[in-house]
């Protein structure tokens, strides 16, 4: 009889434990983390490959050579951008984990409001710090998004020129990279619609692939901004919960103390009455 009862309690406890565990998952933080990882992966992966494709196009069709020395030419800039992309990927991988852990802990603390979790001033400071940091990261990603729209614009123009070549038969139109700011003013690197390099460039899949990779990188940057917005909303809601839960804890503590005092007073009076009777 007792064994059956114990087994029943064990099963019931296990089930309740599962429910409690699932209740503590921060779904909003999960969605934001998935969106952040997707956005950063798209931006860094496609951006890296798009930059590599750009180097190939410049070397093959525009006959740009990598200059020796310390000059800051387009190839050096592209290398710098690649290293920045490596840094962004590593930094936001770690940051996503940090925010996910913070989401788990805060949601767990809120769900277990009257349990073992104690909300301290340190926890509130950490939450406020995360809000400020995420806000700064959001501003940075905004700049990255605006900056990423420029290569998309360049490739769109080049792609339009290729598509419209058949419309202007006979006219010799030239594409000058200096006007896009890609090469320095001293180098005159033109490619004209009548030349063989231009036709080969337009017919190759490399131009199309690089153009689409830049578009996906722009979409990835936009997704990262939206993920930061999600995080800001989640963090501000958690901040509100933590702040007010702290008040409720204080209220409950005071309430318990008052009840205890009342109980003590009542016991004392009972004893006094008992003594009086004796």
């Amino acid at each position, binding site marked *: 009889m007792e064994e059956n009862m114990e087994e029943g309690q064990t099963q019931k406890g296990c089930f309740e434990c599962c429910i409690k565990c699932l209740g503590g998952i921060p779904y909003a933080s999960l969605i934001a983390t998935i969106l952040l990882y997707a956005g950063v992966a798209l931006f860094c992966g496609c951006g890296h490959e798009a930059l590599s494709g750009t180097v190939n196009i410049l070397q093959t069709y525009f006959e740009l050579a990598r200059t020796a020395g310390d000059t800051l030419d387009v190839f050096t800039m592209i290398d710098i951008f690649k290293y920045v992309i490596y840094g962004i990927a590593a930094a936001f991988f770690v940051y996503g984990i940090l925010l996910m852990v913070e989401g788990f802990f805060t949601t767990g603390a809120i769900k277990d409001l009257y349990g073992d979790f104690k909300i301290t001033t340190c926890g509130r400071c950490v939450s406020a710090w995360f809000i400020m940091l995420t806000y700064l990261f959001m501003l940075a990603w905004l700049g990255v998004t605006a900056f990423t729209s420029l290569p998309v614009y360049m490739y769109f123009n080049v792609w339009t020129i290729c598509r419209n070549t058949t419309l202007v038969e006979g*006219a010799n139109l030239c594409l000058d990279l200096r006007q896009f700011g890609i090469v320095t003013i001293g180098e005159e690197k033109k490619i004209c619609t009548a030349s063989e390099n231009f036709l080969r460039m337009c017919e190759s899949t490399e131009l199309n692939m690089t153009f689409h990779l830049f578009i996906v990188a722009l979409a990835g940057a936009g997704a990262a901004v*939206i993920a930061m917005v999600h995080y800001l909303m989640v963090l501000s809601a958690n901040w*509100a919960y933590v702040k007010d839960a702290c008040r409720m804890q204080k209220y409950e503590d005071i309430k318990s103390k008052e009840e205890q005092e009342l109980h003590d007073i009542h016991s004392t009076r009972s004893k006094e009455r008992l003594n009086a009777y004796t």
Partner: protein
Amino acid sequence: MGLLECCARCLVGAPFASLVATGLCFFGVALFCGCGHEALTGTEKLIETYFSKNYQDYEYLINVIHAFQYVIYGTASFFFLYGALLLAEGFYTTGAVRQIFGDYKTTICGKGLSATVTGGQKGRGSRGQHQAHSLERVCHCLGKWLGHPDKFVGITYALTVVWLLVFACSAVPVYIYFNTWTTCQSIAFPSKTSASIGSLCADARMYGVLPWNAFPGKVCGSNLLSICKTAEFQMTFHLFIAAFVGAAATLVSLLTFMIAATYNFAVLKLMGRGTKF
């Protein structure tokens, strides 16, 4: 004494985060729409005067510019109304939040407004059939509409996504003008470069502004330098920069709105849960 206390009490209910966001929103939209409109007009004049002799070449561009200007009119009107609405929502929910904590004494209007947020009037008073003030009834209806921060967060979220595209696109004209200005600097100071001045050009066709059969379509050498020296070019360039900054400010204000509204929503939700214990 009473007057000072009244002012202090009034200030306690002011939603400072929403006030900052509204100010930033109005400032950003005014900058974006005003400067963007004038910059587009300046661009139209530059194209007509220097880059093309034939009306048919830039007819399409003029139609596009006019379409953008009409969109700018619509955007300015919409954001003026929406900013005022968000500010009202901020005042309302902040007042409700502070009333819950007892930091704020409300009038009849405040009681009617807050009833929809805190779940309505409960207790013995609801049994009696008392006649409500007409003012309280109006505020009650208004509160049902304004007292939902989650709806405002959703709309502002959609606006943020749309405005993100606007912000990215507004970087493009700044880029075009910057490159043209850089080319002019090289023409003005030829010692920096070994290329001949005559081969330095600004080709509007290459930027996608004019079709490829436009004539002349581009301006080179000293002619380009004279264009850059005009006040019109300088003004248009700076106006596009200001429009870009305005788009960024608007985006930041929308995000600030969302943070404040989410915070208020969380507080109201938690307090609603708290009353059940």
